[in-house]
């Protein structure tokens, strides 16, 4: 039995990740912000991974990222809601419902047509937000610290919430990837017609993945808006969506932990690049993307897999020797 399909192991990896992230955050408080933002973006990229596994690249996840963040910002500004749970559930549900509606249309598209249509849809939201002052205009909204159990969430507490929620989500999605529906994704990428001959509906599976991806992006958008404290229409601009694609490619699509790794590495490189060479950030991003596609098509996560396989091969060799 392949070890990647072991539920106990999945739980352990997710728990270990949560503990390590919390330990790093509290040992180096100056990294909390970077980590929280990276993890929120990692969740959006996680949704994209679901789609990439089926061979679909969305250049419009910014749509749901932005929708989630705006639902938080606008609920705070206009409705004066500030309960953390309500806001996050609202952001996720809103994005998922929106994804569900648009999914009816998008699930019929493949390849670049999928990419282009998702891009167009997110640019529609961008245009709407820019032009209507009720929706914040080009300035957007400020987002304040949310409230939970009647208490305002402090910065370190917000960080802890982000880490734990991310851990739980990643665990859930990893379980999903191991389920029958989750494993259908790569099959659709390999050969869609054969999948249908085997009795599964590719379109329905893609629709489901799209809804999940939208929900994750909304959730990530909501979480990141708390950490960043400000939202603006650029969240829906296509270059934001391009960044999520980059994170997903950087991490890899092998499992649900990969995009988090990708997001953390990206934020680290970004803060280094901003510090030492401000105008070369995109060169670094583009060049590393090319290098990844050429030399490491499985993303960073495939490095751990390689190490694992090497160890296993050594073990086999030892056993054979005994």
């Amino acid at each position, binding site marked *: 039995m392949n070890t990647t399909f072991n539920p106990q192991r999945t739980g352990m990896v997710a728990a270990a990740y949560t503990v390590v992230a919390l330990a790093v955050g509290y040992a180096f408080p100056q990294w909390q912000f970077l980590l929280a933002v990276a993890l929120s973006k990692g969740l959006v990229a996680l949704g994209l991974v679901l789609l990439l596994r089926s*061979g*679909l*690249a969305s250049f419009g996840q910014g749509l749901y990222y932005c929708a989630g963040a705006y639902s938080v910002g606008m609920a705070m500004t206009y409705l004066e809601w500030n309960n953390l749970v309500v806001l996050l559930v609202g952001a996720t549900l809103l994005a998922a419902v929106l994804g569900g509606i648009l999914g009816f*249309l998008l699930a*019929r*598209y493949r*390849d*670049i*047509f999928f*990419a*282009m*249509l998702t*891009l*167009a*849809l997110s*640019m*529609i*939201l*961008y*245009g*709407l937000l*820019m*032009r*209507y002052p009720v929706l914040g205009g080009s300035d957007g909204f400020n987002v304040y610290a949310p409230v939970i159990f009647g208490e305002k969430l402090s910065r370190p507490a917000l960080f802890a919430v982000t880490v734990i929620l991310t851990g739980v989500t990643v665990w859930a999605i990893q379980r999903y990837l191991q389920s029958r529906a989750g494993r259908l994704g790569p099959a659709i990428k390999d*050969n869609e*017609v*054969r999948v249908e001959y085997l009795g599964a509906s590719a379109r329905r599976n893609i629709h489901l993945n799209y809804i999940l991806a939208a929900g994750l992006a909304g959730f990530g958008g909501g979480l990141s808006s708390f950490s960043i404290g400000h939202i603006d229409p650029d969240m829906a601009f*296509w*270059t934001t969506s*391009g960044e999520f*694609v980059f994170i997903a*490619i950087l991490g890899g699509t092998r499992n649900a932990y990969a995009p988090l790794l990708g997001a953390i590495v990206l934020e680290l490189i970004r803060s280094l690049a901003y510090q030492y060479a401000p*105008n*070369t*950030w*995109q*060169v670094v*991003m*583009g*060049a590393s*993307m*090319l290098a990844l*596609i050429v030399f490491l098509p499985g993303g960073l996560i495939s490095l751990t897999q390689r190490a694992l396989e090497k160890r296993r091969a050594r073990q086999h060799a030892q056993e054979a020797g005994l």
Partner: protein
Amino acid sequence: MSLLPAALIDGVMYAAWLFLVAVGLTLIYGVMKILNMAHGSLYTIGAYTAITLVTQWLAGGSEPLFSYVLLIVAAVITGVVLGIIIEYGLLRHFYREEPVVLLLMTYAVFLILEDAVKLIWGVEPYVAYEPYGLLGNFTIGTLSYPNYSFVIVGAAILSGVALALFLKFTRYGKLLRAVIHDQEVSKAININVQRYFLYTFIVGAMLAALGGALTAPTISVAPGMGVDVIVLAFAVVVIGGLGSLPGAALGALIVGLVRSFAVHYWPEVELFSIYAVMAIVLAVRPKGLFAAAEPRKI
């Protein structure tokens, strides 16, 4: 006063510009089946090269009329240099990959070129209005238009017609159509498909750069100007059907008129009217208006 004539004229002029910036994209897709996300960067670099050449030329106190030739020279230089680097140096080695991988590769090239522009030309905007101002204005009724707009309309029509005639009547055009139709068979009858890919990419890059070079005198050239152009060009070619020349023309006309009517009658929706039209067209005709039906392959 009625807005209608103004909206129509603006729409057609905008459509000509759109066609010019989009035609290279559809050409490259038609032949190579690659959606080139670096198209907007080629546009930007074309504009920068043009503005640099024109500024140098005028600073020497030379004949200003010659600056129009320089705009074209800039496009040719940009297209040849970057076309060779991108196709010969990079894309050529990955044609076996899936379309999504190639899409991501051109996206990476876009990222690199965006910063390359900042590194070479800095972040300050450049202006050189001389070629634009030189031609004066043209009045229809109460409306006044810069004559330079007709240069862009002319360039759009000329490039479209020239491409169509080339494909239809010349020997190389016919061979290129064979490549578009079936690469395998073209190889079998000894057409050098690789070479056609290189030439196509160069010409496509040149057309993108030409769009930028001709736009340069009308705007202030600044980093990031290509970011919007990519999505506009995408909208145009996707509406018409990727890889179709008449499709790109029709797409440009639709987008141009929609935007101009939106600007004149309902300014709030200007920004997203174009994408809304694109989404509607794709929802009704998934592969665009002029796309041919394709068999499903197992």
